[in-house]
């Protein structure tokens, strides 16, 4: 059975809560408003600037399980002129030699397009590539232990894209395990890509049909 003391305690607690109720409501409303304002003005991201080295082609980048060798000094802006039936298009094509460097798992694999991105600059979002095209096949599987293959990757760009120098961000996976405390398998594997380098490449314009 409840004693009188308990009842009085409950009453006092009730009073205390009610006395400051309006102030609490105002504080909560303020927090919500501040959160909405932060969200509306573009979030709470800390602008750090570039923390990875910027290299200029020709250069070699070892990143995660891949080794890229940018031998060609020029990337191609491949323009496809407007025809009666299709809009004008342009793609940026970057050539490099690609080697499977997976000394952990010795597994053959293809390059994920998300690992090579174009950095348009000016705060714009990065553009993902379409992976690596080697030996005339997009998504060619590269074998660990074989010499590098010459490959290229392509980015979709605006039809009037005409930058003289483009920057490519190279992201590398890390060979690490997930947190076993949450029940995940603790064997490490390649994942969690982080930026490793930025490569600057000069461009030249190629109009489709002239070159091929």
């Amino acid at each position, binding site marked *: 059975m409840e004693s009188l003391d308990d009842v009085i305690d409950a009453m006092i607690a009730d009073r205390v809560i009610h006395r400051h109720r309006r102030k609490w409501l105002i504080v909560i409303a303020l927090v919500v408003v501040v959160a909405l304002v932060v969200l509306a003005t573009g979030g709470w991201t800390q602008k750090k600037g570039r923390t990875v080295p910027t290299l200029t082609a020709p250069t070699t980048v070892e990143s995660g399980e891949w080794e890229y060798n940018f031998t060609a000094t020029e990337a191609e802006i491949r323009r496809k002129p407007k025809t009666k039936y299709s809009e004008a298009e342009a793609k940026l094509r970057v050539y490099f030699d690609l080697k499977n460097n997976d000394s952990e*798992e*010795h*597994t*053959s*694999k*293809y390059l994920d397009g998300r690992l090579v991105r174009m950095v348009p600059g000016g705060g714009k979002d990065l553009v993902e590539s379409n992976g690596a095209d080697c*030996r*005339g*096949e997009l*998504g*060619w*599987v590269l*074998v*660990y*232990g*074989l*010499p590098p*293959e010459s490959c290229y990757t392509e980015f979709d760009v605006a039809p009037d894209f005409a930058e003289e120098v483009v920057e490519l961000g190279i992201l590398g996976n890390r060979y690490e395990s997930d947190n076993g405390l949450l029940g995940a398998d603790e064997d490490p594997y390649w994942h969690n890509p982080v930026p490793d380098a930025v490569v600057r490449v000069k461009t030249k314009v190629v109009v489709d049909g002239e070159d091929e």
Partner: protein
Amino acid sequence: MKLYRPATILVGVLFILLGGLTRLATPEQVYDEQNMKAVRGTVGEVLQYGGGDSTVKVTRMKFAKAIVENDEDKPIETNGVFVAIEWDTVRGSEKPNNIKATLTADGGTVYAPIGLTNSGMDFPEAGFGKTGAVIFEVNPSDLKDLTLNVRPTMFFNTYNSYVLVDLGIPGDDIAQRMVDEAAAQYVLPRPVVRVAS
């Protein structure tokens, strides 16, 4: 009302101890994967796949220096060597899991199939058999104990089996001889479906 009576605390402590005891009592893990049974075989043997009544057979293995997909296309060349594995699958009444085929070598190297349209391994409809080929690009100096690993792709970790086909390369000297005798080119056959007899 009291929340923390001695009896409540005792029960909590007991549960914690019980958890520790069950961990101690789990048997040592003998297999890498406790839910997978390996079905081993050699070239030409009909092997049961995935616990059901579907079967997988490797009919032939060929080494080649180039792959031709269509007669008109330019052959695809390699810095290593291509291994073509011709297979024959028969689907039973139960639907088997999709196949993920890889080649593994002695040192732990894993080779994945090349991404051509007709290079792959799968099952036809129930009651039919299918033949085709799957192509791997491999490193000629890493071929010892080459084994075809036919795994089911599973969404849940249920009890299942996978097929290991020993391709008969016990040593580096035999591997070297096979690489030396590799065909100049291999024409990738189109998969053919037939009625299973």
